[in-house]
């Protein structure tokens, strides 16, 4: 047994500052943000829990290598401006990451305090620093290198694209972001709901990039309005493709085209991008189900289920063919959903959708499953239990079983090498594709993943693009 004294006891004695939240029974019917944010006092107290490790594991756990002990120390000292400036050197989207990163498997998961208790609330602190700057900041921008005269086109405006834009703009390159939708932000705008990530915050993060000099062009469908080769003809020196996965998968069971069955992409795009939850104040409608089922159990499924609850459903069920252990959603998201009254129907698989004579969904035939031998993904394969058929009533079903590679851009660019699933082949270290001057990253390379992994890919690509723009291919 070691006789060494433990670290100073007072640091451990401070409990992790609990994030204040809207009460579940209230928030389940509104679209306002669920966590309310730390006060200054709470943030400084939480920041004082950080041990300021010499070799911080948290930084290694962060895909964009944020100087976590550094920005936390500045919060502890009450230098909130210093803190956000420190964050900006590594992360163009701190207000977003503080909210949607899966900290529990990244920085907080490897925090030394997590070994014996609760890790430092790194995500909450990052969010605090960004929110404080938004409310009280001077608006001062980070320093920027002299213009290099090089032009970069960034295709898509989701998290990986915005990271590339942010990194290259401070290095002095001229950056144009091309977005197919009428509003920039990608999945941050159309996918993640208002109650998890207020759209105002996304707009401000993009405005931050625009104030630094990035140009954002909406309604530009690269592959249709303009091709990649035409971008080079127009004088761009390098192109980054961060177009996301975004081709919804369906279950391919009978009855899936009944009215009342939507992909999560469609449902969330209506709710988030088109703000259809305000219908008829806005013009885009959204189906308001009373008995809602959501197929799938990832973060998108949780977002869809919680949106349906907020749109006035009597009952919302997550239906998933595996068990709780295999659910891909973050634990915190599952917890939030359950608090809001969303029920979990695990080891359940739909075999058929049924409808009325008007083609509207009325129910779903299901089978109960049990877990068998592990499949290709290493997870135990769900196998149907014989004679377990049962009927589930529903008037709205949302399919959230993932997405595939959208072929719109890649089909129109034949010299871009794809893998057998249609994703773009890019060097994992640099993001370089088979086409000279073209980089790619995020979901269009890896398949659907997280905001921060897409940002990590964007960081690596931006470094490589900067190299290219400085020294050549």
């Amino acid at each position, binding site marked *: 047994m070691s006789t060494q004294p433990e670290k100073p006891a007072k640091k451990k004695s401070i409990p992790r500052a609990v994030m204040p939240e809207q009460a579940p029974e209230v928030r389940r019917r509104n679209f306002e943000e669920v966590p309310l944010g730390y006060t200054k006092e709470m943030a400084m107290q939480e920041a004082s829990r950080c041990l300021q490790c010499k070799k911080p594991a948290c930084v290694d756990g962060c895909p964009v290598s944020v100087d976590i002990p550094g920005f936390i120390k500045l919060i502890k000292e009450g230098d909130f401006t210093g803190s956000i400036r420190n964050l900006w050197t590594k992360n163009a989207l701190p207000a977003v990451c503080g909210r949607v990163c899966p900290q529990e498997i990244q920085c907080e998961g490897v925090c030394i305090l997590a070994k014996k208790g609760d890790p430092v609330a790194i995500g909450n602190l990052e969010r605090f620093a960004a929110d404080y700057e938004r409310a009280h900041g001077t608006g001062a921008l980070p320093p920027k290198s002299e213009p290099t005269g090089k032009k970069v086109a960034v295709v898509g405006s989701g998290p990986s694209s915005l990271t590339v834009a942010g990194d290259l703009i401070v290095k002095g390159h001229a950056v144009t972001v091309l977005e*197919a*939708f*009428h509003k920039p932000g990608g999945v941050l705008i*159309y996918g993640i709901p208002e109650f998890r990530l207020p759209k105002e915050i996304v707009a401000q993060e993009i405005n931050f990039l625009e104030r630094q000099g990035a140009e954002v062009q*909406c*309604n*530009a*469908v690269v592959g*249709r*309005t*303009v091709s990649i080769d035409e971008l080079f003809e127009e004088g761009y020196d390098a192109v980054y493709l961060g177009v996301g996965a*975004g*081709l*919804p998968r*369906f279950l*391919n069971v009978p009855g*899936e*085209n009944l*009215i*009342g069955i*939507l*992909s999560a*992409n*469609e449902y969330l*795009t*209506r709710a988030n991008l*088109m*703000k259809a939850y*305000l*219908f*008829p*104040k*806005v*013009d*885009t*409608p959204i*189906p308001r189900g009373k008995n809602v089922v959501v197929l799938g159990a990832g973060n998108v499924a949780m977002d869809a289920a919680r949106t349906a609850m907020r749109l006035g459903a009597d009952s919302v069920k997550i239906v998933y063919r595996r068990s709780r252990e295999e659910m891909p959603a973050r634990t915190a998201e599952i917890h939030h959903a359950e608090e809001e009254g969303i029920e979990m129907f695990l080891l359940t698989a739909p075999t058929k959708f049924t409808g009325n004579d*008007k*083609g509207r969904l009325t129910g779903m035939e299901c089978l109960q499953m049990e877990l068998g031998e592990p499949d290709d993904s290493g997870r135990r394969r769900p196998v149907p239990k014989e004679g377990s058929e049962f009927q589930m009533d529903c008037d709205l079903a949302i399919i959230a079983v993932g997405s595939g590679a*959208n*072929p*719109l851009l890649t089909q129109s660019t034949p010299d871009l090498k794809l893998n057998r699933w249609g994703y773009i082949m890019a060097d994992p270290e640099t993001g370089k594709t088979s086409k000279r001057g073209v980089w790619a990253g995020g979901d269009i390379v890896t398949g659907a993943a997280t905001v921060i992994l897409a940002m990590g890919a964007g960081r690596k690509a931006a470094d490589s693009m900067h190299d290219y723009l400085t020294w050549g291919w």
Partner: protein
Amino acid sequence: MFKIVKREEMSEGTVVLNEIEAPLIARKARPGQFVIIKATENGERIPLTMAETDPEKGTITIIYMVVGKSTALFKTLQVGDGYQDVIGPLGKPTHLEKVGTVVCVGGGTGVAVLHPITRALKEVGNRVICIIGARSKDLLILEDKMKAASHELHVCTDDGSYGHHGFVTEVLKEVLEKEDVKLAVAIGPVPMMKFVSLITKEKNVKTIVSLNPIMVDGTGMCGGCRVSIGGKNKFACVDGPEFDGHQVDYDELMQRLQAYCEDEKACHDGFCKIRS
């Protein structure tokens, strides 16, 4: 903003033509492709197939029927006003090839979409016979343009106020008896496309239809526009909008087009009340 440079009302004011400044789209667009249009910040994204493009002038022309709140809002826009967003060109262009004799069948505002395709089919060397229809003479659109774009034009009205008294399908049957038709193109209301396809299938004439299901993004992301083609799901926005008419499940499409009918009616009534 995408400015309206020309505006015309047709069909007793139920159909409106807008020529819109959209140089990037005009440069790229090919017959058969569509755009998504949104008038205001809180507006809906509406897919419309282009009726005309002028790359030199940098304009595109759309012709829409006023059916709900969004198109009623479009109708209030005058020359000099504009749309907040126009996105495109979207979808695959029409496959143009010289095959011999082609028959083009159009109904309602479908004629507007049919016109550039007809002209292009003629330009590549086909003999083009056109059959267009409307409920009555006053509702008929683009007769002169269709005449110029084809070798032979037949006009039908449901009420007999002009041309053949009856449906386009009746004239189509006669044309198919007389002529060695290699390809049919049908664009119009879903029931019209359905019945045209039934007739051409009997005669084994390849048939192209252009579908306009409910759509949000137009780039393959939402799957709202999925249609059953030969029992398989296809997305009209990226796999279409044109499909083999003999493979389309029209009954499913007709039902799916009704998905928001109650919401649309409430929204439209509310809009009309405010404006009256």
